[in-house]
Each structure stands twice: as C-alpha cells, then as structure tokens.
C-alpha cells in the first residue's frame, strides 16, 4: 500500500496510535448510527402501534411489537403484485440492456463501422441532457409512438426500451472491450469465427466483471426510479412498488406506509449485501478513473 495523507509510522507510535484508535472507534460508531440508525428506526418504527409512535420521548425498542403492521401493509397495498411488477420490469430492462447495449458497445469497439465514432458521440451527448428536461417529450412520444401511433402506456416496453438508451453503460462496456487485445480477436477471425461467435465465446467470457457492474446498475436503476414509472404505468395493476406506496400514502396510516416502504427496500438491501464487493469495487475502480 502506498502512503496516504498520514504516514504509517506516525500511526504506530504512542500518541498517534491513541488518536488513531479513538478516531477509528468514533468513525465506526458514528457511521453506524448515521447510516444504519435510520434504517433501524424505520424497521422498528413500523412495528410500533399508532399511540406508541406518537409518544414523547420516542421509545428505542417497540414496547408492544405489532408485526400485524407488516401483514396489513402486504395485503392492503397488494405488495406481492407491486413487487412482482417491479421485479419484472427490472429483469426485462436488464435483459434488453445486456443484449442490445453489449452488442452496440462491441460494434463500436471492435467492428468499428463507418460513422461509429459519430454515433458514440451522439449517445454520449445524451449524458449532458438532464432527465427532467426530456420527461415531457418522452412521455408524449410514449403515448403516441411516431409513425405507428401506438401507445406504450401500461406496457413494460415503456420501461424496457428507454432503459436501453443508457450511454453510461455503453461507455463502460466499450471501454472494457477496448482493453481486450486485438491479437485475441484476429486469431478468432483467422479461424473463421463470425463476429457474433467472437463476441459470444471470446469477448463475453473475459468481460464478466464489467457485465456484472452494468447488470447491477441496470437493476437498481429500475428499482429506484419513480417519476417515469409513475407516468407510464398509470393503472393500479401495472404500478411499481415505489409508485404504489406513494399512491396509497394519502389515505393509509403512517405505520402501514413505512412498513410497506421497508418491504420495498428489502430486495435492494439484500441485493446489495450479496453484490456489495462488486458494487463497491466496480464504482471505485471502474467509475471515473483516468
């Protein structure tokens, strides 16, 4: 490890060691309180009864836990359906992105058709356009597709297809493909492999790490999105879980709403705990280095 702001030797000696120990303990306790504390409050708060939640000072542990709140949230908001919808949209967006964005990045990196760089430039330019600016014309496009005059409202394609237009993921994939040595590719071409075959049996197996990072981004983006699914999935049967909770929040007791919010967050937290290593290293190493 290279040296950082403070030298290793300074931290080992008497006073430095003491200060370091105190700092470490402070950071561990402080960060746990700041980042896990609210989550603990949320999970236990949703277990409290309506009267207990209004009590001052608030109780640290629910005195009379009401698991019924979670069961109520599950049935009243039809969370099974909402979670299934969200999962279905996320999975479809992931598949569409893996197939189409990988193919596009491969073409831009290895096949390099004429005007390829211009197309890449136009794709990257969309990163400069804030989502909010495009939301109205995108919505107008989705409710009445040009030429064919179809509406995609309440259709999963309204989430899947716009998800493919993700310049950041194409950029990540292309940059990774660029680093694959040309020799490896030309050997395959010599052997008469088609571009599809080369992509499938040479490029993709090497690219597993970046495919993992892109997949994680693709799934979490759909799970976290709010305004777009709210606009294009107006029916109660097609809503995502975030939108469903919001729609119910008006006339539902707050403990039930928070219990539903906890349930909606569980899949992402579990997902994070499983893929935590690749997420953190993907962001620190693959993110914006250079």
């Amino acid at each position: 490890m290279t040296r950082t702001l403070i030298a290793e030797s300074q931290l080992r000696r008497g006073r430095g060691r003491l200060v370091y120990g105190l700092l470490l303990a402070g950071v561990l306790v402080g960060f746990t309180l700041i980042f896990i504390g609210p989550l603990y409050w949320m999970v236990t708060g949703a277990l409290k009864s309506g009267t207990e939640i209004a009590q001052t000072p608030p109780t640290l542990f629910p005195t009379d836990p009401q698991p019924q709140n979670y069961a109520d949230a599950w049935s009243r908001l039809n969370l099974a359906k909402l979670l299934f919808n969200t999962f279905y949209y996320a999975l479809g967006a992931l598949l569409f992105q893996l197939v189409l964005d990988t193919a596009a990045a491969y073409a831009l990196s290895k096949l390099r058709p004429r005007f390829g760089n211009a197309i890449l430039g136009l794709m990257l330019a969309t990163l400069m356009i804030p989502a909010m600016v495009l939301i109205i014309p995108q919505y107008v496009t989705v409710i009445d597709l040009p030429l064919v005059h179809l509406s995609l409202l309440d259709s999963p394609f309204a989430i899947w297809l716009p998800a493919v237009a993700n310049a950041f993921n194409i950029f990540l994939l292309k940059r990774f493909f660029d680093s694959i040595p040309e020799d490896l590719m030309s050997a395959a071409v010599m052997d008469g492999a088609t571009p599809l075959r080369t992509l499938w049996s040479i490029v993709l197996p090497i690219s597993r790490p970046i495919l993992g990072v892109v997949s994680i981004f693709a799934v979490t983006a759909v799970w976290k999105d709010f305004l777009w699914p709210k606009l294009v999935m107006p029916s109660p049967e097609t809503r995502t879980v975030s939108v469903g909770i919001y729609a119910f929040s008006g006339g539902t007791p707050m403990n039930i709403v928070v219990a539903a919010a906890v349930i909606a967050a569980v899949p992402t937290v579990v997902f994070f705990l499983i893929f935590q290593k690749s997420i953190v290293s993907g962001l620190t190493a693959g993110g914006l280095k250079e």
Partner: protein
Amino acid sequence: MATITAPRPDVQSARPPISARRRRGRNDLTGYAFLAGAVFCFALFSWYPMVRGVVMSFQRTRRGVTTWVGWDNYSRIVHDPSFWTAWKNTLHFTVLALILGYAVPFFVAILLNELRHAKGYLRALVYLPVMLPPASALFLFKYYAYDPSDAGLFNAVLKLLHLPTSQWMQSSTATMPAMVIASTWMNMGGAVLIYLAALQNIPGELYEAAELDGAGIWRRIVTVTIPQTRLILSLMAMLQIVATMQLFIEPLILANGAGTQDSATSVAYLIYQHGFFQNDLNGAAALGVIMLIVLAGFSAVYVRLSARQD
C-alpha cells in the same frame, strides 16, 4: 476519455485495396446490425424527444389540433406565480446541497482513506442508502425523522442535546435544509466512493515531500490532496449541479409538492405540475427548454473555468 478517440490499428492496410474495401463494406453492415437495437432506442427515446421538446415548446395542442404559437408558452410559464419561487428554491437547494453534499463526501473520503481497519464495512455502510428506493427513504424521513412533535427522531436527538427543536416540513425556513439533509444522506455514497478512487491515485511521495517541508495535515490536504484531485472535484461539482437542479422527489414526498408557503416548489416539480395537472404539456416543455438553457450556461462557465486553470 482517451479511449474514445484511440487510433484504430489498421490491420487491413497490408491487404490488396479491392478486397479490403469489400471486407470493409461487409464489416460496416455487420457493425450496423449490432448497433441497430441500441440506436433505435436512442433515436426514439433520447434524440427524437430532444428535438420534439424544443418544437413542442413553440406549439399548442387543443382538442387534437396543433398550432404554432410563437413564444406564448414561454410567456405563460414565466408569468406563472410560482415560476420565480421555483427557481429561487431550486437554486437555494443547489447551493445548500453543494455546501453540504459536496464538502462532506470529500472529507469523508479523506477520512476513510486514512483508516486502516474495517475498510470494507465502512465503504459498504456509506453506500447502503444509495441502494434504497428514494420513495422508501423519503417516507422514513417524512414520518419518523421530520415529525414536528417531540416524537420525531430528529427532534428527540435535538432535545437530548438541549438544542431547540424544529417544525421541519411545517416551517417554511426549515423545509429547505430538511430536503438537503435527506438528499445528502441518500446520495453521498456514490461521491464518496468516486473520491476514494481518486485519492488512491495520489503518489505517496508527494505527501512525503510535503511533510519534509514541514507541512501539517491541513496544509498537506490543501497543497497535495486538493490539487491532485482537482479534475475529479470539478467534474463532480458539475454533475452535482445538474443532479440537484432536477430536484423533484424530495418536494413531492416530503412536502406534498409545494410545501409550506411554496417553500418546496422546484422547477422540476413545476414542469410536472404543468404537464400533468394543468394539462399544459406545451408550457411544461417550454420550462424544460428554459432549464436546459440554464444548465448549459452552468456548463459553459464550468468549461471556461476549467480551461483557465490548465
């Protein structure tokens, strides 16, 4: 970004020109076939809407009939009583979020980079809120943290520390800081991890040399850490301005949209209001174009400033 413009190794130059050209043509076709799906999606959901947004902002559709109306939509949207309030609030949020959400992740990254223990745990901890659906996290803040009575988490903590409690979302002055705190908690993890990556690239000799010159910790941060991460710092500032200018879900969930005395109305919320409640998609599109121009202005200033530094 060097990879985008990397010179293409010309493997075909040694071959006879005619077969090379034929080969090139076939390669092009295969290339376009691989690109087709993504290009279709970009065209339909990014490039076309970009043009359409501008076109729409000069039109008006009534009962299915679309006519050109010049600057009417712009003048209507500028005269909306909430227009200037929304801009004031949005810029207020951007500035506060820049102070809190920009400096804090940087110093958290410096701190985490110095700690030799529990590295994985602390990095995961900071990033955890980023994974939560914003709607979930914001309901937590709305109901349990920003409860204006003393039963709320924040007021209970303030009371414990013998500090004055706050009405949070019920107070027009506390609304903005409350939205900034919630937003920073939810979003800072990404910035921390990106700064950490940048910090790890600083050569250790620079710190050594500074220390030999008698520079203390703070001076080393100012003379080594900040200059060495300048590029990523300024890029993140730009990205953060773009992100915070789109403030939407915080006012929608925490403040039910407008908030106490319009203290939460944001430009993005006004776009949503006009487009979907006032049946004024054209006015909303015009406001979108105004927002784009303002952000382009920020980008121009950014490019200018970063060009001057080099």
